């Protein structure tokens, strides 16, 4: 079974853990307090912001890129960039940070398409399934990743936020900085395209 013997898959599963409860989505006051501490010289306080947001942001980057290694690189680069520009934060830190990560993902997708570089398929995640579900889920994940890769980045982003991250349209609008209507349209278009692509095999 490819899902079991694949060494990259094992590495992926070792790299991720499961959680029983989601973290609170954001806490503006708490974030501002932490930012003030960091700007005042308490460098270690930045770890609180990393711990608070790295899981949902990692899921976003993983969903967008399909690669655990790339997702990790994007998060690391994004947090370092956020640290250097922390004094420029206005409003919600989580939305500001999300846009840095989201743009990192889109830049990566653009570069992949521009150079026609195909990243190592072994790096693609295939979910965290029980062994009995491995084959089916791995195949579906690969097909879903392949279908997602054919979508425009904005459609892919909207689909990932809605269906992988489980966000409401209102929350998506806050993070992306656009309207609920525009995001609904993107999600609907993404679903239509994915359904056509998946129906060929799974209907």
């Amino acid at each position, binding site marked *: 079974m490819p899902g079991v013997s694949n060494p990259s898959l094992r590495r992926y599963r070792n790299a991720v853990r499961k959680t029983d409860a989601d973290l609170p989505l954001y806490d503006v006051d708490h974030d501002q307090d932490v930012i003030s501490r960091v*700007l005042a010289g308490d460098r270690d306080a930045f770890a609180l912001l990393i711990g608070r947001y790295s899981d949902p942001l990692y899921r976003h980057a993983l969903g967008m890129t399909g690669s*655990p290694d790339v997702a990790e690189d994007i998060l690391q680069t994004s947090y370092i960039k956020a640290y250097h520009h922390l004094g*420029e934060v206005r409003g919600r830190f989580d939305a500001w940070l999300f*846009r840095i990560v989201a*743009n990192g993902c889109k830049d990566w997708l653009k570069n992949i398409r521009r150079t026609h570089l195909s990243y190592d398929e072994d790096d693609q995640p295939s979910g965290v399934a029980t062994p009995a579900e491995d084959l089916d889920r791995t195949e579906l994940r690969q097909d879903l990743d392949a279908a997602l890769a054919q979508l425009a980045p904005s459609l892919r982003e909207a689909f990932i936020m809605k269906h992988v991250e489980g966000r409401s349209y209102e929350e998506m609008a806050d993070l992306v900085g656009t309207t609920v209507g525009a995001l609904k*349209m993107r999600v609907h278009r993404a679903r239509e395209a994915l359904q056509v692509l998946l129906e060929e095999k799974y209907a």
Partner: protein
Amino acid sequence: MMVDRHDAHDNLNQTSRDTRDGAGSADHLAADHHAADREVPLPAMTAADGQDNVVQLWLDGEATEADARRSNNSAVEIWMRVQRDAGQMHQVKAPAHLAANIMAALAPKAPLAD
């Protein structure tokens, strides 16, 4: 007296990474809202589109699964599988070593307050 604002579009061509990355988010948000306003509406629906629309409503929590199945059962089956898979993805957490790697890569000096 009315005065023309010659600086109203001063930031129109601003493409610095800082703006793209979230800094200067007010301009960024305004630009995105304009872009959203320009998004082309979906074309008029056919009967087949209407079937899929019920599935879309179900996926948004605005129609029942039974209605969606009556409309397009095979599509519902596909989306049930996708949602199970997506649900597994939602449990994924960042690698445990990521926070330490980021902290180790940060500059020793505190960032400048704006």
